[in-house]
């Protein structure tokens, strides 16, 4: 039992924190980054690469630095604190996760070096018009042809899908729309014939895209993982992403709590700081309790995220996300309320944390979805 970072992890944390402070310490800079066509700064993305963050989770054989979920947690926490807009989750955690855990050697060789050096970005195209958050609800089809595949369908809300060079697309190779079997995954170059994309900003300041796939012809080796068995891999990679989101949320909650405390210590009303009111103090204390509980579950998620056994991993990750969601809701709302009007303005950072946390709560399934997973597993087992 040990909750300390290793020396390497500590150094990693320090350097990411420094990067974020430089890039986002002045809140004006964030708007500046967002003004780029891709919605983030390619220059900053190169700095991620130079620091080795983009190759972090890949093994050394794969061209990476052999980091694990704790390293990802460290980076994502810093991203959460900075309220960063770079496609780390989309490219490294999700896209990279599919390559790491399901990609062929050829696919890994083709893409991982580019990811690590910052030249290749990815996106996971899964949500459809009817699917909500059900990973297995896939109407997009992939038809086998001579020596390849043809994809048809439409994907919604593809995170950073407007600027990604490659899309990881879920498509049905067999079965009915909501069957758990028969889903396959494909690596689709964004510039392939028949792919059209419409990008737009999301409510929390990131980018997403609607992706149309019309008779997209792909070679045989575009298939990622085993044919028809894509769901298990998606669940595995999404669990890694959920753990990363938990860490991002903890970073954002921590920063938002600090911002609130600073405000409570400065802002005066009726002649005294509002932080001197006991009712306010108790609510700030409850925010800390919620934050520390979330931090514990984010660590738990990091330690469970790479577990290949879904019977152990899925309830654990679902539990973490459910608790992080509850904490994020409480801290987000209380931060706005304790600030008052100022937090309702675009110019001030608090509202943006609130918006990111709100969206994060619903990413990959809302709280009830995760509670259902935990309850269906009979609860959390005693095994830590």
């Amino acid at each position, binding site marked *: 039992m040990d909750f300390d970072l290793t020396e390497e992890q500590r150094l990693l944390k320090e350097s990411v924190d420094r990067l974020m402070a430089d890039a986002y310490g002045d809140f004006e800079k964030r708007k500046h980054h967002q003004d780029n066509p891709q919605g983030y700064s390619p220059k900053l993305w190169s700095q991620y690469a130079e620091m080795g963050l983009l190759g972090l989770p890949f093994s050394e054989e794969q061209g990476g630095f052999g980091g694990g979920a704790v390293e990802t947690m460290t980076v994502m926490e810093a991203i959460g604190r900075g309220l960063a807009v770079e496609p780390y989750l989309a490219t490294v955690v999700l896209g990279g996760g599919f390559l790491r855990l399901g990609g062929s050697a050829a696919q890994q060789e083709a893409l991982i070096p580019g990811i690590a050096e910052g030249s290749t970005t990815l996106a996971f195209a899964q*949500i459809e*018009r*009817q699917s*909500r*958050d*059900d990973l297995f609800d896939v109407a997009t089809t992939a038809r086998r042809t001579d020596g390849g595949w043809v994809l048809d369908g439409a994907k*919604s*809300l593809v995170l950073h899908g407007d600027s990604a060079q490659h899309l990881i697309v879920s498509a049905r190779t067999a079965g009915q729309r*909501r069957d758990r079997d028969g889903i396959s995954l494909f690596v689709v170059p964004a510039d392939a014939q028949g792919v059209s994309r*419409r990008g*737009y*900003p*999301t*409510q*929390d300041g990131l980018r*997403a895209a*609607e992706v149309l796939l019309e008779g997209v012809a792909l070679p045989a080796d575009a298939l990622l993982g085993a044919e028809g068995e894509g769901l298990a891999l998606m669940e595995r990679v999404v669990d890694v992403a959920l753990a990363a989101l938990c860490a991002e949320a903890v970073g954002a909650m921590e920063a938002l709590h600090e911002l609130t405390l600073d405000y409570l210590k400065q*802002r*005066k*009303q*009726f002649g005294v700081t509002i932080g001197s*009111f006991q*009712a*306010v103090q108790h609510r700030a204390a409850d925010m800390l309790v919620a934050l520390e509980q979330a931090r514990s579950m984010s660590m738990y998620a990091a330690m469970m995220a790479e577990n290949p056994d879904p019977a152990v991993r899925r309830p654990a990750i679902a539990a973490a996300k459910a608790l992080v969601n509850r904490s994020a809701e409480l801290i987000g*709302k209380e931060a*706005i*309320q304790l600030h*008052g*009007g100022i*937090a*309702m*303005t*675009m*110019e001030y950072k608090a*509202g*943006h944390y*609130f*918006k990111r946390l*709100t*969206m994060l709560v*619903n*990413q990959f399934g*809302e709280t*009830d979805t995760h509670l259902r997973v935990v309850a269906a597993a009979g609860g959390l087992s005693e095994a830590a």
Partner: protein
Amino acid sequence: MELRYTPEEIAFRDELRATFRSKIPAEIRQKVSEGRHLERDEIAQAHRILHAEGLATPNWPVQWGGKDWTPVQRYIYTEEVQFNAVPMPLSFNVAMVGPVIANFASEEQKQKFLPATASLDIWWAQGFSEPGSGSDLASLKTTAKREGDHYIVNGQKTWTTLGQHADWIFLLVRTDPAAPKKQQGISFLLADMKTPGITVRPIITIDGGHEVNEVFFDDVKVPVENLVGEENKGWDYAKFLLSNERTNIARVGFSKEKLALVKARAKETPAGEGMLWDDVGFRHRVAMAEIELKALEITQMRAVAAQRHRAADKPDPTSSILKIKGSEIQQMATELMMTVAGPYAAAMPGHSHNEPPVGPDWADAVAPQFFNYRKVSIYGGSNEIQRNIIAKAFLGL
């Protein structure tokens, strides 16, 4: 004890409902229902239709275009405006400055302002809040110095809702900085927004909307004839004005409309093997919200019915309860709508009208309204201030 409306009250309600539905353009009502911001012209159009129907200023004195309605009728009116997603007649005109002018202004001022205020030929803005004042309104710092026939106004107001559209502004200014208490030495002025020295700066809120503004006063000359009532008595008029919001504070009609929409949309939103409405957990959340709302509605009705027994100027002990619970339920309703929208709430409103929506047509307005509605527990006396009031004034703590 009788909960039901009388047949006369039901007829009254049905008549209002029919008027609202037939006279107010459906597109405007739909925008309100979907939680979208209205354009200036849409607000003005709806207001003027109501005015033409004699329904813009029912709470004013009859001689100035008001109605001699019972408290129950007034309550039904507000309910029906909200429940039918009709834009409220501009509250700065109708609920705020109008009654102040009618009650405290000179005959000349009444003649000059009331008809134009009722018809929205003058669009009013409210200049009360200041950057440093927050919930402590009386700490305001904007000054007005008498120089001959004018006051010279200097200072800054903020959270000025729809100030970008305003023709005139009513504002509280400090005319006697030496007064022993901060509530003393405040005056109530009316100023033409075109007066040199007034600058309006937009505040964009986290939902992306431009609803509120900062208003700067830099040596602004306001004629003394624009003083309402007595100099240094402005706080009394402000208190009168703020107490007028009472019957509207719970916004039961709004929440009713919103929860009905939550149910209607959940019934046509696929989720799992059926529709979202089939999900037990979701239905129980909606049920609990509806139950809280029913309780609030009756609490509100009790307050309305009790008006018979109370002098009009006595504070209503339940108004703080209505504010707290009302804002909680409004926020609950916007949260339930977030659940209905699911992942599709994440997309920003389309930048061009030619772009097809992401998810259902209405989904892009859901998150902005959720964000925007955090305000309802902050403004109009934050819920913390309301709890202070309850504790001190009613619980004796």
